[in-house]
């Protein structure tokens, strides 16, 4: 039976267990003189039965569904005669897709070698067997769990404590998903990165000044001929991020100052949500805007004053990214400015300083560390932003500081390397994971430092 059908079935069994245990707890309680003589309410006996029924069965089901495919694949591969066992992972995926296409009837068995047809038959058999096993096992465990809990409906057992402890564990596991996600991210990039550094030396990667992963496509050509230098990607990323910050920091900061110090309450109440709308616009929309409106505009403008501009300029991507980050900077600075104690303000104003002098000489220095933290967070956003640069910045890795030239960024390269069909093992694909690792480390460092600064600053005034 399919996992998708098995899941509701298990839930139905759990519901039945719930109802039966509920009735049994009442009938157990009746001769004792009502449910007050039970250690827990009937609801808890019933809930316990449902949990016993569902949780073990669902764990088995999840594990089975997760690893079924891989195990069957390996069994099929190892059943192949030794001369046709694929040597490289690339061949393996080719053979596997052939086998599964034959098994699914998409590929005519007459067009492929006999051992593939045999393997396809085996695949079909294994799938059917696995499905049978899974169904039997899961249903059996659900029924056993339910029956066990049903027999344990006894007045002296405190079912409430059992249920509450289980729920606590479930809550804990949910909280631990955050850790699992981090671990998952780290491991998914680390393994591929290590394999990548097996093909391309790490010094090449970090200090090379030329990036052209296309050259590694041919199998007879090793990627280690200087094609994987990350420097142009880094300078490209920095250039675009710098332009973005040059737009968003002054605009965001000044609007935050105005909103928190000058604006009347109703003005603030209307302007702030409007600013935040900028943050809610999806990045693909900004990408569209940058690629189809801003970039041609900038090119025409530059040509109008006699400069040469690429149709995909760093300036266009950076400008639009800056617009996107404005609300981010402004709401962070707003928080920080509001956290400066009122008596600093009052003291300065009482000495006769104007509001702008108070702002510039008292509040701003006091808020500076917090603002710096905010800017670092904004920088990490800019570095990790993908869609705008994918659509509006180029693909060619130029080592340049000219904002009218086209540059490429780390995120753009990750996307271009991983979209389209590559084998999972080429240096090209692995390079994307190495880039992802660099991106993860850099943004993580920026975030940790920024959060530390912001927190320290907050403690100072609390």
């Amino acid at each position, binding site marked *: 039976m399919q996992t*998708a059908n098995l899941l509701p079935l298990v839930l139905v069994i759990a519901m039945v267990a719930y109802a039966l245990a509920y009735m049994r707890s009442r009938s157990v309680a009746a001769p004792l003189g009502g449910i007050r003589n039970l250690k827990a309410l009937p609801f808890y006996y019933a809930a316990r039965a449902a949990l016993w029924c569902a949780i073990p069965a669902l764990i088995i089901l999840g594990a089975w569904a997760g*690893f079924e*495919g891989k195990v069957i694949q390996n069994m099929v591969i190892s059943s192949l005669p030794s001369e046709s066992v694929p040597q490289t992972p690339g061949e393996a995926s080719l053979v596997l897709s052939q086998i599964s296409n034959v098994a699914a009837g998409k590929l005519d068995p007459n067009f492929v070698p006999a051992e593939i047809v045999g393997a396809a038959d085996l695949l079909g058999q294994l799938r059917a067997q696995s499905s049978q096993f899974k169904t039997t096992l899961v249903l059996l465990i659900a029924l056993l769990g339910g029956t066990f809990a049903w027999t344990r409906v006894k007045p002296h057992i405190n079912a*409430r404590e059992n249920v*509450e402890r289980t*729920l*606590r564990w479930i*809550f804990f596991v*949910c*909280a631990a*998903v*955050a*850790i699992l*996600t*981090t671990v*998952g*991210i780290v*491991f*998914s*990039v680390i*393994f591929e990165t290590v394999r990548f550094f097996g093909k391309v030396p790490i010094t090449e990667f970090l200090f090379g000044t030329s990036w052209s992963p296309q050259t590694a496509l041919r199998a007879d050509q090793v990627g280690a001929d200087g094609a994987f230098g990350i420097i142009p990607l880094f300078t490209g990323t920095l250039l675009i991020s710098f332009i973005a910050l040059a737009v968003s920091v*002054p605009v*965001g900061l*000044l*609007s935050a100052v105005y*909103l928190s110090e*000058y604006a009347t309450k109703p003005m603030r109440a209307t*302007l702030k949500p409007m600013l935040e709308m*900028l943050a*809610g616009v*999806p*990045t*693909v*929309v900004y*990408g*569209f*805007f940058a690629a189809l409106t801003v970039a041609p505009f900038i090119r025409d403008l530059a040509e109008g004053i006699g400069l040469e501009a690429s149709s995909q300029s760093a300036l266009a991507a950076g400008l639009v990214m800056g*617009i996107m980050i*404005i609300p981010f900077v402004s709401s962070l600075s707003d928080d920080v400015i509001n956290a400066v104690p009122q008596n600093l303000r009052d003291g300065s104003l009482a000495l006769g300083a*104007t509001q*702008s*002098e108070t702002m510039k000489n008292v509040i701003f220095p006091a808020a500076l560390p917090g603002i710096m933290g905010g800017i670092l967070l904004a920088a*990490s*956003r800019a570095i*990790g932003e993908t869609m705008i640069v994918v*659509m509006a910045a180029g693909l060619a890795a130029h080592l340049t500081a000219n904002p009218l030239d086209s540059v490429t960024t780390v*995120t753009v390269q*990750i*996307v271009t390397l*991983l*979209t389209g069909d590559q084998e*999972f093992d080429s240096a090209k694909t692995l390079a*994307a*994971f190495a880039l*992802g690792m660099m*991106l*993860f480390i850099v*943004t*993580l460092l920026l*975030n940790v430092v920024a959060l530390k600064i912001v927190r320290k600053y907050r403690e100072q005034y609390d």
Partner: protein
Amino acid sequence: MTDQRSQAEIVRQSLKKRYRKEKRFRFYGIAAIAVALMSLVILFTDIIGKGYTGFIKTTITLEVPLDGEAMYLDDPTDKDQVSMADFQAPVLAALQQYFPEVTERADQRELSRLVGSYASNQVRDLLEGNPQLLGTTQTMEFLVHDTVSVYVKHADNPAYSIRLTEQQQAWVDELVGKGVVETSFNDVFFSRGDSREPSNAGILGAIIGSVLTMVVTLVIAFPVGVAAAVYLEEFAPQNKFTDFIEVNINNLAAVPSIIFGLLGLAVFIGLFGMPRSVPVVGGLVLALMTLPTIIISSRAAIKSVPPSIREAAEGIGASKMQVVLHHVVPLAMPGMMTGSIIGMAQALGETAPLLLIGMVAFIVEVPDGFFSSATVLPVQIYLWASSAEQGFVELASAGIMILLTFMITMNALAIWLRKRLERRW
């Protein structure tokens, strides 16, 4: 005394300058806000200006002579004949009724290019469905080719006519003048999946894909996020491990979304062998991405429930879990839902991680389940925006308008919920 007076004098003299500075500073603030709002306005007008034509389709109504001889077809029920027959011929013949002077082969080809390439399929389907129509003349409505469509919709803008020859422009102008070529509301756009030809492409597939993906995201992220928030606020002991969880959540909230795409590619597709480009994997990845947002806002909602409620419940003998499940969580629910809707709106607009797990594939069929290949709204917009045809650009902006409508609705719902249900203590 003289000293003091001169001091006051100095202050008075500098006052003007200082007030001017004050004014200038205030002006900078207003200018900054104006810049931000202006870019918002420009963004929206640009997209609406580019995209409103996406909601218009251009059709051509022709009297099509279904002449068997011209099509090399005498029995529409015969599959072999149908596969060999020339269904373009009657369309061209119908067009030639308006332009009998076109006899050159090259000119004829140009003329028949005015009609979309699906026209011949339409003729074939009609005949296969109703074989008795062979030999009659039928009135049929076709979509025009997308270059013609763009030309008709932007008749006043010469930039949109470059893909047509002058001869073709003259033909189109005449057909429009005769009322043969007409524009109407683009129902095709709302009822089909993607297509290679802009006038035949629709957004329904992407909308359904987005809905399926969002369902998966919601079903996973909301319960897990709320449970995690409850654990961290109510049950977690004060220790290093709890701190570690919190640090992780805060960092995950700031990890670039594309990294989650790498995670999905390596773990869900690579390790677990899940299929590419299906809503389930997309939903899982987006769920992991939105989880921190939901946890953080749910924790804030739980924190805002006053201690008096907890104390009262504990006072009459409720266990800790009962206090939480019967009182705290229901009272915090509006806040949790608001945070989740905002998180979901973010997830709806997310593109980058979905590119990596293969949701960029060109998919014509409207997806029919969580395990069928699909694309989502923002990815569809990206695909159209990077296509060369002018017709796709207007579709991309029309798609953006639909995406933004969804997002604005969701955010409005969140604000309404907050106003309506949230209690001030």
